[in-house]
């Protein structure tokens, strides 16, 4: 069968970086082709070339055996190529229909927008591909998973039959990811071709028909999911063997470092997000907070670090009351915080790497003497941290926005971990990262624990929680419904707790039995 899409010798250079080095790739009709690689391997660059966002320095693109000139997304869409970006391109205050018709408006009488017709088409597409969505909902009211469906509908509405999905599961819960896979299988069955960019091995093995692995801008190999396994793919991706689990000694818990009592925190819409939560974290142990996203973990972490107001209850760190302390006061108690939203909170995207590496220490010696910042010291420290934490950047002077997501996260980790810290609050520390980086960050977290740091780990990844934590607290609807020892539990038991079922023998509709004070 002739390939529907063929990339030949695509090369793209950025100042100081060869992002794509003569990449060849073919996509057959009706297949799901996974593009696997670490962060910064050049996956997103390649797809941006295909989508017309970047112009390749060399190479050509063939669509249906004809050389295609793609100067921008408009050309790409005209050729039937559609892309779902990692960060969605939706307008929150518009309805689903309005977002779908944006840029391709259907009009009656020359001036009036024909919302009804578009809504009808959306309903048709929903039924056809199992993409359940209400065309009249506002985007801001939809969950991330549903928003992603809207992005896919947008492409189908424009008659795209070559779909590119850039790290589509990075923002999804496990259930949402399963739903997405079903949708993609439906799309495939109807003859669409899909390029699926990811660095999650499990997904690739489950979904893909063919796998191409990129490393350092080059194709390092391709594989058939039938005849390969996680370890082999990981080795191809990283270029060496990877241990997929974390080696660690049993914890040696000492004095209580973080003491949380009856904490109540509201969310943005003034609903109770954290409801009467109490727990302690001791020096030298990792307490994992598990839970499906949106059950109060985000607000809990922000409240503990001074970024959200605490309604009632108390927090004390190393015996000092920090219930209403400022972020700076908390940071000066030697608390490190890896924030959940690295682009909004953790980094100033328009600042160079060196400034981001001292973002919360810039005012203190040795980085500043009085008012004057000590550039030499900052640069030296930045160079050291970039080296030590293997941040891949052309230099410490480039803006952190030009780094890949994984390297941005490493900048944050480098900053927070190179301080002498007593308490580490890490929210989703490895979200969107590749195996190599995850392994590395996990190792550093355990190192900190063994050095006597108390660690509070908030993560939606059950694997991560299970491999790092000594104790696991499960949050459901703003409450900690149970705390278990990590070595005495199973994934299945935690899964049930995350769904709100305290007891395995409880009936499946157990959610209603949990007193829900947040309503």
């Amino acid at each position: 069968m002739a390939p529907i899409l063929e990339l030949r010798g695509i090369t793209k250079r950025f100042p100081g970086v060869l992002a794509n080095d003569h990449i060849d790739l073919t996509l057959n009709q009706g297949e799901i082709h996974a593009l696997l690689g670490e962060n910064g391997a050049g996956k997103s660059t390649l797809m941006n070339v295909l989508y017309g966002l970047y112009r390749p320095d060399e190479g050509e693109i063939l669509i249906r055996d004809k050389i295609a000139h793609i100067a921008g997304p408009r050309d790409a869409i005209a050729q039937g190529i559609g892309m779902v970006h990692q960060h969605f391109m939706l307008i929150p205050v518009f309805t689903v229909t309005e977002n779908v018709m944006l840029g391709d408006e259907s009009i009656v009488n020359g001036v009036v927008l024909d919302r009804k017709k578009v809504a009808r088409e959306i309903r048709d597409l929903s039924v056809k591909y199992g993409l359940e969505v209400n065309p009249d909902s506002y985007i801001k009211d939809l969950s991330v998973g549903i928003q992603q469906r809207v992005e896919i509908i947008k492409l189908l509405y424009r008659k795209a039959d070559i779909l590119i999905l850039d790290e589509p599961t990075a923002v999804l819960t496990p259930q949402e990811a399963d739903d997405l896979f079903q949708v993609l299988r439906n799309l495939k069955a109807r003859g669409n071709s899909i390029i699926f960019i990811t660095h999650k091995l499990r997904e690739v093995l489950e979904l893909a028909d063919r796998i191409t692995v990129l490393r350092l801008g080059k194709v390092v190999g391709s594989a058939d999911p039938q005849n390969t396994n996680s370890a082999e793919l990981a080795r191809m991706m990283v270029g060496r063997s990877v241990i997929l689990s974390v080696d660690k000694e049993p914890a040696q818990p000492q004095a209580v470092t973080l003491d949380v009592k009856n904490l109540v925190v509201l969310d943005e819409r003034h609903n109770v997000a954290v409801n009467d939560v109490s727990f302690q974290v001791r020096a030298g142990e990792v307490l994992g907070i598990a839970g499906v996203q949106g059950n109060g973990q985000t607000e809990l972490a922000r409240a503990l670090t001074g970024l959200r107001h605490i309604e009632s209850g108390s927090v004390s760190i190393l015996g000092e009351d920090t219930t209403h302390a400022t972020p700076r006061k908390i940071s000066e108690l030697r608390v490190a915080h890896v924030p959940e939203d690295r682009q909004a909170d953790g980094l100033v995207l328009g600042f160079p790497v060196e400034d981001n590496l001292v973002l919360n220490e810039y005012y203190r010696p040795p980085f500043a003497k009085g008012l004057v910042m000590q550039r030499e010291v900052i640069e030296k420290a930045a160079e050291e941290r970039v080296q030590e934490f293997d941040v891949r950047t052309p230099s410490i002077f480039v803006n952190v926005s030009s780094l890949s997501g994984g390297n941005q996260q490493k900048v944050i980790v480098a900053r927070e971990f190179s301080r002498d810290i007593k308490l580490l609050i890490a929210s989703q520390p490895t979200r969107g990262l590749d195996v190599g980086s995850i392994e590395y960050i996990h190792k550093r977290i355990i190192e900190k624990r063994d050095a006597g740091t108390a660690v509070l780990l908030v993560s939606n990844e059950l694997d991560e929680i299970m491999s790092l934590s000594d104790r696991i607290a499960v949050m459901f609807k703003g409450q900690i419904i149970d705390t278990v020892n990590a070595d005495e539990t199973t994934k299945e038991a935690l899964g049930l707790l995350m769904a709100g079922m305290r007891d395995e023998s409880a009936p499946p509709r157990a959610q209603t039995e949990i007193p829900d004070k947040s309503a």
Partner: protein
Amino acid sequence: MTKARRRERKRKSQTKARKRKASVTLRGSQCRSLRQRDTRYVNSMAQVTATAIPQNNPTPAPRNSIVRRGLDVLTIPALSILTAFIVSGFVIAFTSPEVLKLLPQFWQHPLKLLTTMHETVTTAYAALLQGAFGDWGAIWQGLESWLATGNATDLLRALRDPFESLVGATPYIFTGLAVAVGFKGGLFNIGVEGQLFAGAVASAWVGFSIEGLPWFIHLPLALGAGIAAGAVWAGIAGLLKATRGVNEVINTIMLNYIMFLFTDWLLSDGGPLRGNAGAPRTPEIYPSAYLPRLLPDPVRFHWGFFLAIGAVFFVYWLLWKTTVGFEIRTVGASPTAAKYAGIAVGKVFVMAMGLSGGLAGLAGANELLGLNHYMVAAFSPGYGFDAIALALLGKSNPFGVLAAALLFGALRNGATRMQSIATVPIDIISVMQALIIAFIAAPEIVRWLFRLRTPAQQEHEVFARGWGA
């Protein structure tokens, strides 16, 4: 960034690139040897991760990249100015009475129309440039006659124009910096004009009400009063934003009106600052508060210009070398990240507004102590509003603002000459300024006109944010 610093960085990155090359080969061999004993090294993963993966940097940055980047930055403004001159040329031609008279007879005398247009435009621009940069022939003659006769009158008269351009640029420098500081902090200070009035009134009051001080006390006192008044006036807007979340754009516009009418009242008949003259103005300030002039009449050039240059360096130093500047820039670039970093965002709003207002107040004090020596109602031709354009033109960089202010000062001054010699209305300069800003704000137009390539840099800079900062 200073030249020295750029050179330093360039040197560093080059040595680094060399070092990296060496270490990559080393790492390659380590890598191979490591792979052979696959099982043994998995436990020492931390060290391996740091060394096993070579840096993804096969193409070292070109040597002249910094020079090229500098040129890239200047290309768009320079071409924007050029384009604005060309378009304004047509505006001048088609608004000239002679050309309009010939227009109906275009088909009979096409050549005559074109030559008239050409003459009109060249006369106008020649006058503009002469007014802006001086008549160097006249300066030379003046110099000769001064050396020959000892009479400097001709020389000074010839020197008046180029120096007047600098005098005109001075308030632009201060106000442009004021807006730029706001932009850097993510604040849009439209109230620079009002803060300028506040500064002028305060320095006038100090200037005429205190008698008998030596100049080295009186002058700083008067300047300080101007800075303080501007800072307080702008600080109100900052405080309201920090504590009550009131939008500073609306706030500063409103504060403008209050200040305009307040100064009107102060200077009105029976107002507290009204002087003895029949006009609405303050008494004259004592010479001890004057910003001294460098040359005799008619050259009005005074020390305020050097004060402005000092302010440029001060703002650069403050924004890029101090913790205060780091905080302002962080809040401007990402308020959420600033909060995370422990910066008191509200405090920074007040501080940035105060700094911005202080510079605006200094602009007012400078005009008053350097040129007018008394305050009149409506004494500014809109320096505070042009400043917004200046800050955009200078990309909120202090040195960019300086360059833009010098340009605007020269254009404004040259326009006076253009009006008197070529009878082209002075307002054409406003058209020209507007065109420059329009082209700068829409660089795609300029790139398309001159068939420039979109710089590769731009593909990286997807995350644009804030007010021109």
